[in-house]
């Protein structure tokens, strides 16, 4: 397979950041109260991811190894600021509903993770395709979770009333929205079910001899592939701390 197509396939399906790698869980939980929000967040992350991969890959030979993390962070933070202003100007309502989560793209594990594990080691063109693949995979994941929550919680799809609502006063039968799904607890509940479904899929694939990529990142407490592990030594240290206490 062509290397660039392989990168796209890898990001969207094989190592889908939401479903398989389970990266970037903060935005996944926070902004998926509707499909539109999920799509907007996914696309803005994609833009940042593609541009960050492009720049980091282009400068990979110039940036000294010792200060690569701060350098990556400055690049990503500048891009995020630009995206934030563009969204403020052209999609003010979306930017208002995403709020503080747009600037928080800076600390999204996916972006620094791809910078560290792919863009800083590979040429520009594959890095761009890696960014597009991962970004679209993330967008797909967020939109799917947003759709589930929006349908169950409001009976809507992208703001369009899909299921006719019940009207008890006039005796009209219909769908009664399960409002909890568009509120905070619904996010945890939908994600929990998603993780459980993925556990079943994972076990089936393993039985077939085609194991999925292991989940990585914050959710599993496995920081090795997070990309921020250069600065963040939390897991190994917290474990050694508890081991020390046990002694």
């Amino acid at each position, binding site marked *: 397979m062509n290397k660039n197509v392989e990168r796209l396939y890898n990001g969207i399906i094989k190592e889908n950041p939401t479903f398989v790698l389970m990266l970037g869980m903060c935005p996944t939980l926070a902004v998926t109260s509707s499909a539109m929000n999920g799509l907007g967040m996914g696309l803005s992350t994609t833009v940042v991811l593609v541009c960050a991969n492009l720049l980091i890959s282009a400068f990979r030979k110039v940036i000294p190894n010792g200060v690569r993390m701060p350098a990556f962070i400055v690049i990503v933070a500048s891009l995020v600021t630009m995206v934030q202003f563009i969204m403020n100007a052209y999609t003010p309502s979306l930017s208002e509903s995403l709020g503080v989560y747009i*600037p928080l793209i800076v600390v999204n594990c996916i972006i620094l993770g791809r910078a560290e594990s792919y863009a800083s080691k590979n040429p520009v063109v594959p890095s761009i395709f890696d960014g597009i693949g991962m970004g679209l995979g993330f967008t797909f994941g967020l939109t799917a979770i947003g759709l589930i929550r929006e349908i169950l919680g409001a009976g809507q799809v992208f703001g369009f009333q899909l299921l006719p609502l019940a009207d008890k006063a006039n005796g009209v039968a219909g769908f009664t929205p399960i409002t909890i799904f568009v509120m905070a607890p619904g996010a945890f509940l939908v994600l929990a079910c998603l993780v459980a479904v993925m556990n079943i899929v994972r076990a089936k694939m393993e039985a077939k001899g085609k194991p999925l990529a292991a989940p990585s990142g914050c959710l599993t407490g496995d920081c090795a592939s997070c990309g921020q592990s250069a600065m963040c*030594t939390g897991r190994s240290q917290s474990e050694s701390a508890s081991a020390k206490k046990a002694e």
Partner: protein
Amino acid sequence: MKELLLIAIGSAIVNNVVLSQFLGICPFLGVSKKTETAAGMGGAVVFVITIASFVTALIYKFILANEALLKMGIDLTYLQTIVFILVIAALVQFVEMFLKKSIPSLYQSLGVFLPLITTNCAVLGVALTNVTKEYNILESIVNGFATAVGFLIAIVIMAGLREKIEYNDIPKPFQGTAIVLITACLMSIAFMGFSGMI
């Protein structure tokens, strides 16, 4: 005083940072296996977020949104995300070195968690919220401290629950992260009960 109290209760309990704003999910799920480590992590977060919100509020007021500069038509507030993340990363390193050198006993209990906090989105989230809500320096410190206390409460309760859950008979697909998320969901429903308070 009344405003400060409202800010404190609002960010510690009503709009809990983990359970209703989804910031700092990573350590909440990753470091909540034991009550002791969870309390250590929570303590370190309280320490760092309080200092970080003080420092970022100072930087915002006197450098980025400096009145003299604004009068000259120079508005540096667009740099806030870049400046805040770098300041927080540097600050955590500095606090770690300072504690190691001068207060070894505190370093013993909090030090191991400090590097983990650099990338905790709650720290940056609080700094940015302080700016969006136009808090002054004192209000920023109170907001930062209260938010971090909210994190401490959530992670300690979660660790306590997880220690109990460990011996339960859970359906296979829900073992591990899934049951932790369900627990978080139930905690979040419980915390929604506070929403009428303010």
